[in-house]
């Protein structure tokens, strides 16, 4: 309470009074897309995104530019020489693929590395690049998959370590009639709502087999990876949603799915541990601001810990448990069942 968010620069900029200098540096931007509720103008075709008609100045620009191969102020004692920057600026190099410079939550400039493939470059530009721009704009970006029933205004966000089954769970819930709001990157705005992501989900070959989805004709995300782009079509939720709850998936030594509710400070810890690219926050000097923002999000939503057997489990009980929570059921606490 009492935080003066109205004084933030990004909320006071208007198209009439100020134009980002990048608008004068770039060539034509023939492609315009909607992503995370923002209009992105690009000189690169981005088949992963939803095209829209051009309306005035864009919110974000993606354009070829001069991005130095080394960070100008490289400190030899620094460990991460492929990531650097400062407040409102990220410089990143993915050797053999792409270099990028993201400024002011507006300008994503890129330079392909020699031999770099465009589809691999897009993966990083639309992942780390957009993620950095969102953080610069003041969003809290959660690493998770947001799903929602089409007739409801709130979404469940599946979070947890990589490989825990977030994408599989989201796609399986889609088969049960849920819409996918965002896959992997869930930006939460100052209004506490999650903005809609790309109209596709990452589908692993293994998941496809488990859920009986054919990968025939699906585009590989990157050549050589057993990972595909699954178009969501009507199963993509295109509007922002409030947060119903976070479902924290945890593999554990349990025989069956077990749910419990996380409360108090631990909610904060769980959300903090599931941020998208948390190393960017330090770079942008946003850690202090994020403490309050994450605490407000934690305060306004419930967090459920859903433990599932480590391997070889049937996914249906997990989906049943998530549906029950979404429909207002209270988690069954294993402790409460003890005599």
């Amino acid at each position, binding site marked *: 309470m009492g935080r003066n968010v109205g004084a933030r620069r990004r909320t006071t900029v208007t198209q009439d009074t100020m134009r980002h200098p990048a608008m004068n540096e770039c060539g034509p931007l023939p492609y315009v897309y909607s992503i995370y509720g923002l209009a992105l103008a690009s000189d690169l075709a981005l088949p992963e995104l939803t095209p829209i008609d051009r309306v005035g100045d864009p919110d974000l620009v993606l354009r070829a530019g001069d991005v130095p191969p080394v960070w100008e102020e490289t400190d030899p004692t620094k460990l991460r020489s492929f990531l650097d920057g400062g407040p409102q600026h990220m410089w990143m190099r993915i050797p053999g693929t792409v270099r990028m410079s993201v400024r002011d939550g507006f300008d994503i400039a890129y330079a392909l590395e020699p031999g770099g493939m465009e589809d691999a470059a897009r993966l990083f530009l639309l992942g780390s690049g957009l993620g950095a721009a969102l953080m610069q704009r003041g969003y809290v970006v959660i690493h998770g998959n947001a799903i929602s029933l089409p007739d409801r205004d709130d979404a469940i966000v599946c979070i947890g370590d990589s490989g825990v089954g977030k994408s599989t769970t989201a796609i399986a819930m889609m088969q049960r009639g849920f819409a996918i709001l965002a896959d992997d990157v869930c930006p939460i705005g100052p209004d506490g709502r999650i903005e809609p992501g790309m109209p596709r989900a990452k589908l692993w070959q293994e998941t496809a087999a488990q859920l009986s989805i054919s990968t025939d004709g699906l585009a590989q995300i990157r050549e050589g990876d057993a990972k595909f782009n699954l178009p969501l079509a009507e199963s993509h939720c295109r509007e922002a949603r409030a947060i119903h709850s976070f479902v924290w998936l945890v593999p554990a030594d349990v025989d069956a799915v077990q749910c419990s509710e996380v*409360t*108090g*400070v*631990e*909610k*904060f*810890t769980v959300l*903090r541990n599931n941020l998208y690219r948390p190393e960017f926050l*330090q770079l942008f000097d946003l*850690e*202090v601001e994020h*403490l*309050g923002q994450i*605490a407000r999000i*934690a*305060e306004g939503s419930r967090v459920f810990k859903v433990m599932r057997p480590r391997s070889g489990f049937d996914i249906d009980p997990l989906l049943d448990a998530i549906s029950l929570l979404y429909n207002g059921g209270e988690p069954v606490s294993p402790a409460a069942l003890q005599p």
Partner: protein
Amino acid sequence: MMIGTMDLNAKLQRAPNVIATELDGEMVMMHIEKGVYFGLSGSATQVWSALETPSTLREVIASIETEFDVSEVDDLTGVMTEFVGQLVDQGLVDRVD
């Protein structure tokens, strides 16, 4: 460490490089330079509240006695001395000497 040496008249204050925010009646704190997070709950949050202005350990303990039922705590002074000592060791609270 500090624990054994702190007496009840030790003057204490919140460290300047710590920020805290409330969450569901508990407290989330972050040490800005270290980038480390801490959580306080229950009577521990009262310690932080009591240190809004620099106070002695004696005054902090008195505020706990006012706000909480401590009748079943055997050695409140010992418990509080140890806890406040931890806050000092973690750099969340400074001694003003």
